[in-house]
């Protein structure tokens, strides 16, 4: 091929690449804008102040439009009715009657994430340490302890050891209790020190010392019970991720992998007294830390994909394996039930 023809061929490839890729991106942008424009307005209503005084659900509203990503509140009596919007925007949110923990992202050249405690007026009361990509957040019942889980990773995924979770427990007054990954992990009586050890998804008991969480090492996961004072975590049973303790403290809702394909889970409830496990009527794969609506109903987020834009709904399903799943709040994520 002559030099001239080579240049012509390169210009042709360049143009094809430019037009092809540019056109693709432009098309995606256009369809995203259309989806946004045609989104029905969210039903807003309710008074934040008075909602605080009655049982309510705090969640991240995913309805498209200006309020996308904002934290909203609905009364427990009308979960799918009008929602009252708070000024806060969070990727993950959890709340008690006094405090709210909000994990948020600041997108930019380097996306950074923040963990903020919000006071009763939804204003920032304190910033807590946070590293990595927000994954889970929980407060203890009385609001004195907070646990956050993040995925920690570097820019390159080519180095072993660069990816892990980090789960930090902090007192809401700002004192850091510690990274529970550094606690002593005991599985079936043996201390685990493997480098791939990860812990995530904390749920607190009521005494402000005990907690439950997920531990993983060597491709296995366990439900662990931990003590903040003793700085230990001990395995209770295998194949449990993201536990959530029921209000009456007798059962744990969790997601299990079982013999499902990689990256799929299903919801189950484990009875701490009897040691029995019930799989719930929800058969789709759930990747969320479940929340208890009351002692007989489980809430969880499930994503849906319509017109190329991803959103999610909050679903409910009976905790005893009966019934069938129903949408509780549409276009919502990260529910916290406050009574």
């Amino acid at each position: 091929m002559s030099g001239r023809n080579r240049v012509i061929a390169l210009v042709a490839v360049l143009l094809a690449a430019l037009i092809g890729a540019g056109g693709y991106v432009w098309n995606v942008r256009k369809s995203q804008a259309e989806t946004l424009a045609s989104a029905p307005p969210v039903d807003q209503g309710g008074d934040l102040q008075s909602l605080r005084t009655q049982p309510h659900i705090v969640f991240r509203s995913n309805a498209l439009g200006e309020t996308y990503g904002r934290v909203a509140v609905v009364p427990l009596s009308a979960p799918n009715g009008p929602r009252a919007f708070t000024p806060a925007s969070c990727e993950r949110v959890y709340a008690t009657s006094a405090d709210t923990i909000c994990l948020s992202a600041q997108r930019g050249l380097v996306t950074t994430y923040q963990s903020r405690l919000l006071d009763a007026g939804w204003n920032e009361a304190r910033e807590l340490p946070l590293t990595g990509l927000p994954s889970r957040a929980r407060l203890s019942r009385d609001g004195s302890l907070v646990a956050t889980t993040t995925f920690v990773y570097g820019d390159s995924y080519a180095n072993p050891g660069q990816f892990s979770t980090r789960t930090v427990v902090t007192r809401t007054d700002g004192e850091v209790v510690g990274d529970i990954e550094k606690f002593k992990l005991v599985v079936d009586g043996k201390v685990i020190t493997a480098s791939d050890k990860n812990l995530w998804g904390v749920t607190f008991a009521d005494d402000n010392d005990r907690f439950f969480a997920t531990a993983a090492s060597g491709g296995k996961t366990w439900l662990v019970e931990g003590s903040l004072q003793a700085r230990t975590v001990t395995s209770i049973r295998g194949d449990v991720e993201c536990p959530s303790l029921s209000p009456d403290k007798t059962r744990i809702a969790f997601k299990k992998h079982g013999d499902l394909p990689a990256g799929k889970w299903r919801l189950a409830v484990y009875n701490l007294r009897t040691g029995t496990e019930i799989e719930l009527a929800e058969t789709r794969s759930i990747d969320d830390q479940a929340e208890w609506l009351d002692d007989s109903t489980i809430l969880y987020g499930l994503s849906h994909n319509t017109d190329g834009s991803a959103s999610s709904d909050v679903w409910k399903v009976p905790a005893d394996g009966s019934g069938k799943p129903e949408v509780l709040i549409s276009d919502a994520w990260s529910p916290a039930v406050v009574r």
Partner: protein
Amino acid sequence: MYVSLRDRPGADSGKSGTIRRVSSTVVLLGVVSLLTDVSSEMVASVLPLYLTAAVGLSPVAYGFLDGMYQGVSAFLRIAGGYAGDRGGQPKWVAVLGYGASAISRIAMLVATGFAAITAVVTVDRLGKGLRTAPRDALIAEASDPKMLGRAFGVHRTLDTIGAALGPLVAFALLAAVPGSYDSIWVVSFAFAIVGVAVLVLFVPNLRTAAGSARIGLRRTFRAVSGRRLRRPLIAAGVLGLLTIGDGFLYLSLQERDDFAAVYFPLLYVGTNIAYLALAVPLGRLADRVGRARVLIAGHGALLAGYLVAALPAGGLGLTLVVLLLLGVFYAATDGVLPALVSRLVPDEARGSGIAAAQTVVALARFASSLAFGLLWSLQGPSWSLLLFAGLLTAAIPAVAWLLRGVDAEATA
């Protein structure tokens, strides 16, 4: 005559010798690497987010993919180097490697499950393994032997510019079309295809076999395991065993330092800037004072980096010092090692020789990462860093002794 030292006509375009430029082939290969690295780093920078947030992989499944990614390319390197030597067509072996990686980008559009994504990532790494050694053999073939360090420096600089641009392009795209990972794969594919086009259309297929008969597997093996290469390979292996992944260094910085924790992804950028600024000057220095010497000095910088990272104190200043030292280490080793090795093997086995050295380093570093990860969890980062620093302190004089005279041998 074991090593031929022909100067290629045209490789040295300087008029009377004072201002010498690297060959246009080296610059073109650098441009190919730049475009390919924009493509691969775009994907690399969003993949963790995509896999955990959009695909929903658990950390455990992710960890598996992570290790896979590292291990896969090491063995294919030897195959790529040998294939380039054997057929005398290093360019087309490189095209195959770059092409495989390009195709893996567009395959991300349809790969949804864990198995499919693992397969796609594997094809990408196979491509990388295949192309590296024949490409470096082409660089060595196109360059004046006295300027090899500089030639590799120029190539690695262009390569690193691409690696730095990739994440920027990806973040800009995600800002324009939030959540559209498909757009990332498509644009990444476009960059990769233009890179392959430059390679196919403009890089000459320099025959490393130098017109002689094709070399057999046995002769290649003899050349690679021969006396001249043995000591450098052992040295590279020992040093590789004491080189912990930068991921671990970053994690230990993050462990002690709030700044490093918040701006974790920027640590990588900082190292790259130092590398970018130093690759050419250190390559030239290697040509002047000896490649083995610069290689060893680079590990001295790494040793200093371990020690600073192990300090109980933190802060922005100390973090920057570590990043600078790490950049010096990469600039003094990444291009210098192939420059050193390529003159120690006969022309017709050059790709295999370079591949052997790079594979030894890759495998040794992989083993070192596993060992360091284990030590970290048993004894914590500072203790482990100090142990590796101690071992490296002992290894550096030993390696200097091993490599004595190697530079003279390469240029004699």
